[in-house]
Every structure is written in structure tokens, then in C-alpha cells.
């Protein structure tokens, strides 16, 4: 006998109406959560909306890869969104670093209000230097209040890896913030 055979996939035909309903349901259930995460991963609301749109376009192209159930759907979409942002981050990282250097050199603190805005901006811009996955982990933990095991489950990585990213992320942010806040005072 011919022994081992790998049964790897089962392909089926799915009606267009089913796909539309599925994607619409995915969007309605998860777009707000994705937007909140996206907004905290990028600099502007427009970039956040673009990132959410790209995520759902990816879902449209790979609809059958999206698992069922709210938690699994969310995890899939979040991973796609973070990966898309990682790709953007790689492309723009060099340009942004040089822009930031110029901006810091041009920035002169004015009123208290302006100083506060500059300080907030400095804090938020410090996140730009983190790899998007690490940034997402820091945000989920510090701002969304998620535990390391919950983040690990969402991103399909180990809790140890999450804690490592948190530790490195905090260390990197603290270092950058100390330097930047010093510049804005």
C-alpha cells in the first residue's frame, strides 16, 4: 500500500452572499477595537483609518483564513494589523528618524500650553522607535490593561515573550523619554 498521504486542505465553494455577510459581520464586530489599537500604533487618525482599511482588505482577500468566534477573529485581525504596521514601519523608519532629528532641532518651547503639547508629543513620538509588535504589546498592557497571558493569546506568542517585550519596551521608552524630555525643558 502506498502508506502516508497528507490530507492538507479541503476547499469548498462559498456563495458570494455568504462572503459578504461574513466580512460585514467581521467589520461590524471588530472595527472599533482595531481602530483604537491602530490609532495608538500610528501618528495620525488618517493613518489609523488606512491601517484598519488595509486590515479588512486583507481579510476580504483571505476570508477563509479568518477563524470563527469573536476571540479568534479578533486575534487574527489584530495580528494582521500589527504585521501591516510592521511593514510600514520598516519602510518609513529611516525617513522618520531623520525628520524627528530636524524637528527637535527646530522646536522651541513657548507657553506652558505649548510645552505640555510638546511634552505629550514627545512621549507619543517616543513610541515610534519601538518595533510595532513591541509597541502593540506595550499599548495593550499599559493602556488597554491586558495581562501578559491575554496578550500572548491574542498574538499567538508565549507569555514569556510578551514579558520580555514589555521589559525591553519600558526600558527603551524610558531611555528615549529622558533624553527627549530633557530637550524640551
Amino acid at each position, binding site marked *: 500500500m502506498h502508506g502516508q498521504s*497528507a490530507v492538507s*486542505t479541503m476547499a469548498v465553494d462559498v456563495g458570494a452572499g455568504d462572503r459578504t455577510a461574513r466580512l460585514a459581520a467581521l467589520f461590524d464586530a471588530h472595527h472599533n477595537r482595531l481602530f483604537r489599537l491602530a490609532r495608538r500604533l500610528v501618528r495620525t487618525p488618517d493613518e489609523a483609518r488606512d491601517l484598519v482599511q488595509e486590515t479588512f482588505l486583507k481579510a476580504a482577500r483571505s476570508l477563509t483564513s479568518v477563524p470563527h468566534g469573536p476571540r479568534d477573529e479578533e486575534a487574527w485581525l489584530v495580528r494582521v494589523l500589527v504585521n501591516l504596521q510592521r511593514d510600514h514601519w520598516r519602510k518609513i523608519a529611516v525617513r522618520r528618524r531623520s525628520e524627528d532629528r530636524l524637528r527637535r532641532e527646530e522646536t522651541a518651547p513657548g507657553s506652558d500650553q505649548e510645552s505640555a503639547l510638546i511634552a*505629550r*508629543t514627545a512621549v*507619543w513620538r517616543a513610541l515610534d522607535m519601538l518595533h510595532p509588535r513591541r509597541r502593540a504589546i506595550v499599548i495593550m498592557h499599559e*493602556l488597554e490593561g491586558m495581562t501578559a497571558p491575554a496578550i500572548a493569546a491574542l498574538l499567538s506568542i508565549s507569555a514569556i515573550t510578551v514579558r520580555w517585550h514589555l521589559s525591553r519596551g519600558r526600558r527603551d521608552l524610558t531611555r528615549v523619554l529622558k533624553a527627549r524630555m530633557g530637550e524640551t525643558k
Partner: protein
Amino acid sequence: MTTLQDLLKDADPLGREAQWTDDQRGAIREAALAALSPAARSPRPGMAMVAIAALALVASVTIGSRVWSHATVDVEAAAIRFDVRLAEERPAEGLRAAAVTASRATIYIPQDVVVSNGDIVEAHAVPGHASTFSVAVTFSAEGAAKLRDATRRHMGRPLAIVVDGKVVVAPVVRATISTSAVIDGDFSEAEAEAIAAGILGR
């Protein structure tokens, strides 16, 4: 003392900005739904083939004794019983445990079948990944309706693909299944043809 968390919360743009408007939300939703259109035009006209399960599984499918050519099929010896059942991952009343050949997992299957050989109007070997072959089956209108209704109510739960009484693979239903399916495996062309012919009772 100001913590990093305090700094991040203070700087969080979500605390100060409006989120998106209904128009912005609607535009993104429409763009995503519009992107579905190309998928509906699959390379195989009239049949949008999409994988519902990418199971990296290895099965020991015993079909060697059933390999034959179309020209010399012995109806009695050749027929392969094929059926699809709605399975569960946990035991329940009326279900029996069955080992999945592909994954060696255990699922629980009912006596009732959704579709079986009689619901299939066409089955043939088709090229699969690399140099392997798969078995494409097309269900009758009645079979397709049964499968569509059943899988619609069974999202996120496994189907049992039963060949000669053995559950060869148990993909999780991720989309409604209707008129056709492809059992995609590392079959040789002869094996795939044998299964296809056997399913049709040839």
C-alpha cells in the same frame, strides 16, 4: 512619581481626539466589501474555490488495495463509501468517538450523514500542491442544499469527511459549504482517481 503608564495615558491621542465619523466608517466598510468581488471571480469559472481549512496533517490513508484504472473498475470491489457528517470536538449523547486519520485527533460523530455518495454527481482527480493530486467532488442540487443548510448551523465546528468508515480529515467549518469540495492531499494521480471513482461507485 510619574510612571511610564501615566505619561502614556496623558499623551494618548484617543483621550483627546474624536474617533471616526459614520461616513469614514462606512467608506472603509464599503471598500472592504468591494474587495470581495475579485475573489468571486476565481480562476475556475462558476466555482469560487477557497480553502476552509489549512490543516498541515499527515494521514495514513489506506487505499492501495483500491487503486485501479477507470477502464477496469469492478463495481462491487471498487465502491468507496463516502459521507460527510457534522462532528463535535467533545463527546455528547448519540455521538461516537472516531479517530481522525489525518491528525490522530479524536472527534465525535453522529450516525446521521449530511451527504453521501448518492449526493455526488461528479468526482475527479485534480492537480493539487506540487506534484500531488486532490479529489474534487460536486454535489447534486439536493446535496448542495443539505450541505449548505447544515454547515451554516455548524460554523466553527468540525466536519467529518468519512471514507469507507474512517474519518480521513475533519476540517473546521469556516464558511458555508454548498456545491463542491476538494479533498486536498498528497495523493498520487492513481490514488486520487481511485478515490474519485470509488466515491461515484464506479
